[in-house]
Each structure stands twice: as structure tokens, then as C-alpha cells.
């Protein structure tokens, strides 16, 4: 364990950058905290409780290009008139996918334990067989500097969600505020290497993560029946803006689409876009039939995907208790009323 001053801790992103990492830091912009690529003039916010985006936006970026190919089709205008040039001969033109795997290592600086656990959830989804090659390439060699929370705000519930503890591999350096400085506990070789480059004071002992102070306390009951029966008060005022899924650090639903270049329509890119279960097209099948028809259906669906479906399919809860879906909801919908039981919720 080492003790550093604020100035030294703020040097850590540039140290990581020198070590070859792409460093993501929490920065303040327009009154909210947002993770962004580190630049030397980044105003790093060490005191944030809530960030508007999450490590997910860097590990699974929205609009990620999967590959591009030359299409043999020509698209004529005036509606949907597509002509596929016929190819003569035994083995015609093939679809040659051109793509480059994402390269480089990524480092997250000063993320919270809930963020680290959201990466753990994304791992269990994306790396389960067959693994997603794009996610794996981004995630390999990742380094995380986890900053402990002392106290959550009104919306936090990581203690009831049991996501304040850190599994091995999801924290390379643990940071705790102590007096006017910080205590750093490297937990892996890469973390030790990075920490050794700081001017620090050695201290005896070691620190382990501890639960932050919570303003609410309740127990989560989230089986499918619990969610179906649970109260959904205020859901009428939902505007289906999808802020809950956009800011959620574990929402990963996606859409895959082909985009062709307007000038050269034979140049096609296949991209993966983020999709939200609050949207109508999420559950639409051919012919326009949709399975999630009402706001209430979609609200309960999101909770079911977070709790029972994730537990069943991946053996891990999909909610890390960050409270972003409550804090950023313009209609003030609080999912704790549906899944929380017990005191003071």
C-alpha cells in the first residue's frame, strides 16, 4: 500500500498513457461527469458520485464498425428498387469482408466499484461461448483504477445490489481517500508497475474494499413473478426516452445494420448500434407484430432482463445498483419501488 498526494494521483493517467494505454478518465462537462479519453488538459473529476456514461461505452462503442464489404448490388433511387447484377460462371464474386480488429489496451481511471462490476457483467455476456471478437480485442489487457465511494447519493443502491465488492481481475489499483491524500493498493502486476512510477510514501498494511454509506436500505426481490406483481407506479408518465438504457452501465442490447455510402452505394459498412428495449422496434418481427406493446411491458422487461434473465443465462445479476436509471429518468420512475422490499426504500 502506498500513500500519494492529489497531484501524484492526477499524474497516474499520464503515467498509464506513457505505458501505452488508452486512458479513460472522468471529466466534468456542462455540469455532469462524463468518461472521456484522457488529454493533458482534461479536468479530471475525482469527487464525482454519478457519471452520465460508463465503461460500456468504450468497450462496446455505439455504431461500432464490424466490417466493410463491396456490395454487388446497386441501389437505384425512387423507392426500393434494388438490382443485383447477375454473375456468370461457376464461382462468382464473393463477399470479402474487410475489417481490422480493434487494437491497443484500455485503462479506466477512477471508476467506481459498480462500474468495475458492470465490466464483469459484460464479460460474462460477451465472452460466453462463442466470444464476441470485437469486445474481446478491446477488453484484453484492460487495466482498471477503482476509486472507492464513501457515500452514495439518493439513487445509489450498490450495497443492496451487492456490487461494491470487487472480484479478482476487475481492480488493478484500489484508491481510497484518506485525509488530504490517497491510499493506493495495487492488486495486480500491471497495477504495481503503474503505481511504482508515482512519487509515494510506503505504508504498512493493506486496504480492502468496504461498503459505502447508503441512504437507502432494502432487499432486492426480483424473480419474474416478483417483477410481474411489483408495483409500477408512475409508469404512465414514462416518455419512452430510453434514458434508463442509455445511461445503464450494463445495457448491451444491439442492432446490426448495413449502411451504404450515398456516393458509392457499393461500399457497405456493417455497424453495430445500440438498441433499447424501450423502443417499439426492439421486439418487432416481420409483419410489424411487436411483443412488448405497452410502456409497462417494456419497463418490466428491462427489469426482467437485468435480474432473472441474466441470472439464468449468465449466472450473474445484470444490475450493479448504480442508480443511473433512476437519477436520469425525466419522469422520476424508480425501479426500487418494483423490486425493493423492506425498510426505507
Amino acid at each position, binding site marked *: 500500500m502506498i500513500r500519494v498526494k492529489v497531484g501524484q494521483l492526477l499524474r497516474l493517467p499520464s503515467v498509464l498513457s506513457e505505458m501505452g494505454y488508452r486512458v479513460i478518465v472522468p471529466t466534468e462537462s456542462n455540469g455532469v461527469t462524463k468518461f472521456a479519453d484522457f488529454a493533458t488538459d482534461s479536468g479530471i473529476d475525482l469527487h464525482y458520485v454519478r457519471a452520465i456514461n460508463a465503461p460500456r461505452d468504450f468497450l462496446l462503442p455505439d455504431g461500432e464498425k*464490424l*466490417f466493410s*464489404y463491396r*456490395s*454487388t*448490388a*446497386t*441501389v437505384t433511387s425512387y423507392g*426500393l*428498387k*434494388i*438490382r*443485383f*447484377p*447477375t*454473375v*456468370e460462371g461457376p*464461382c*462468382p464474386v*464473393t*463477399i470479402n*469482408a474487410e*475489417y481490422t*480488429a480493434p487494437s491497443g489496451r484500455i485503462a479506466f481511471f477512477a471508476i467506481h466499484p459498480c462500474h468495475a462490476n458492470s465490466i464483469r457483467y459484460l464479460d460474462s455476456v*460477451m465472452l460466453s461461448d*462463442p466470444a*464476441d*471478437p470485437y469486445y474481446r*480485442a478491446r477488453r484484453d489487457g484492460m487495466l482498471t483504477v477503482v476509486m472507492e465511494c464513501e457515500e452514495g447519493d439518493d439513487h445509489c443502491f450498490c450495497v443492496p445490489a451487492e456490487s461494491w465488492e470487487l472480484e479478482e481481475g476487475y481492480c488493478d489499483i484500489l484508491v481510497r481517500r484518506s485525509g488530504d491524500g490517497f491510499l493506493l493498493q495495487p492488486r495486480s502486476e500491471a497495477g504495481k508497475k503503474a503505481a511504482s512510477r508515482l512519487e509515494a510514501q510506503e505504508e504498512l498494511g493493506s486496504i480492502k474494499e468496504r461498503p459505502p454509506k447508503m441512504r437507502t436500505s432494502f432487499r432486492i426481490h426480483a424473480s*419474474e413473478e416478483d417483477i410481474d406483481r411489483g408495483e409500477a407506479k408512475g409508469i404512465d408518465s414514462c416518455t419512452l426516452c430510453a434514458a434508463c438504457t442509455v445511461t445503464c452501465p450494463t445495457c*448491451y*442490447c*444491439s*442492432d*446490426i445494420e*448495413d449502411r*451504404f455510402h450515398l456516393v458509392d*452505394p*457499393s461500399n*457497405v459498412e*456493417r455497424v*453495430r448500434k445500440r*438498441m433499447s428495449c424501450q423502443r417499439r422496434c*426492439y*421486439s*418487432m*418481427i*416481420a*409483419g*410489424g*407484430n411487436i*411483443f412488448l406493446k405497452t410502456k409497462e411491458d417494456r419497463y418490466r422487461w428491462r427489469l*426482467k*432482463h437485468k435480474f*432473472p*434473465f*441474466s*441470472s*439464468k*443465462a449468465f449466472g450473474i445479476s445484470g444490475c450493479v445498483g448504480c442508480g443511473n436509471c433512476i437519477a436520469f429518468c425525466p419522469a422520476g420512475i424508480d425501479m426500487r419501488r418494483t423490486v425493493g422490499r423492506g425498510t426505507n426504500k
Partner: protein
Amino acid sequence: MKAEENPYVPKSATVVAVKNESLETKTLRIRLYNWKAEFQPGQFVQLLLPGVGEAPFCIASSPSDQKHMDLTIIRRGLVTIASHYMRPGDVVGIRGPFGRPFPVSRIVGKDLLIVGTGIGIAALRSLILFLVEHREDYGELNLLYGARFPEDLVYRDEMKYWAEKMNLKVTLSKASPEWGGLRGRVTDHLDGVVKGKGQVAILCGSPLVMRSISGELLERGLKADQIFVSLERHMKCGIGKCARCLIPGGWHVCKDGPVFSLDEISLEAIGD
């Protein structure tokens, strides 16, 4: 990472024949180049039309020919409408096959009831052709096919060959006066084909019809683990990463389905 290891990259294939099945439906016969698809009845593939997009379709041809696959496509959305413009020789991309097939080896020797409605029959054709080829391994075969209008019927020319091997009933819910066959919904014609306990039922069609038939079959004494449904969702990735095909119970239709037995899922999971 090589292209072959990337599950998102399609393999090349060409359309070798196009058959008009009905006003809205065409069957594309697709030939695979330099690769074989080891598929089983009930599995699906992602068909890529270059420059248009990708959509999932159940394979509608016999698994004994693994160099070709038939996809029966009804005009509904962007990809399906574009696929009706395809001509022999056109290049397409195929990803797959994906999913869990019909349990053909587990139901050997059993009496089968197959119910298909609308374009759902396309997902069952692979199974039907498999059963026709392996007729002696199975007990009594009943096929109930329902559609709305006479012009919606697909595989009309093949039906007479199927009828030689199994008891085939075709019913139309909105038949024209000159229609000489059965009239009404498939649920009206379950008498005589449902044998009760010991029979295996396989359903594919619109969600509401599947739900009502499942309820009816359960009432008539079939066990939930002997009723199999093939579900439709708009799978985007096919490997369980996009979560677009989740159904109640936490199943991914692309990985765990599209074939489910009714003891695995609730009737609500079929959808409405």
C-alpha cells in the same frame, strides 16, 4: 483474427433458382461455395443481401443436401422485399446455421402431429422432408396446414408427394366458394389427428395460433414436454450477444431455440 473465426462475417453463396410459391412468397434455392452447412431440421441462417441487410430465416430444405439450402421468404420488410428481386446467379451471404434443431432423434418411433399455419410451414418443411426420407423410423404422421386464402398456400406442387407418406390436412380460414377442401381454423380440425398421450406435437405459425393450439393439446392429454414450438424473433447476431431474441424465462431464441418444448417455456413466452 481471421475472417473464418469471426462469427459476424458471412460466407458467400449464390442463388441458383427462384420459385414463386404464392403471390407474396418465393423460395430461393441457395448454393454454398467451398463450404458445407451441417444443418438439421429447424435451424436457421442469417441471410445477407449485400447492401441491403440481414435477416434470419429457417432453412426449408432437406438436411441430406448440405450443398444447397432453400429459404422460403414472404414479403414483409426491407430484406424480404429485396430478396424478391433476386435472380439466379446473384450473390448472397450466409451466416449459420444457428440454433437448436427439432429433436428428431429423440422422437424416433413416436406418432407425430405437425401443425403449421401461414408461412410457419416454411420452418417445418425441412422436418417434413426429413420425415419423408426416414418414414419407416416414425409412427403415424399427421400434418395439419392452415392458411387464410387459397392463394396463400405454399409448396402446392409438393403436397401430393407429402400426402403419400402422411395424413395431410389443409384448411383455409377465408376460403373462396370454389375451394373444395377443409374450411376453418386449424383448431377446428384437431379431432381425429390428436391421439392424446404418447403423441408428439410440433407447431409453427403465428404466436396466437400456437398458443391456442398448445392450450388445446394440453387439454387433450398431450404432455408439455411432448409439444415443441418453433418461435420467431428478429435475431440480429445469432450468437446471443444482441439480446434481441430474449423471451420470458431468460432463453435466447437464437442459441437455446428456436425450438422449445412447452415444459421449458410458458405459454406467455410464445408471445401474442
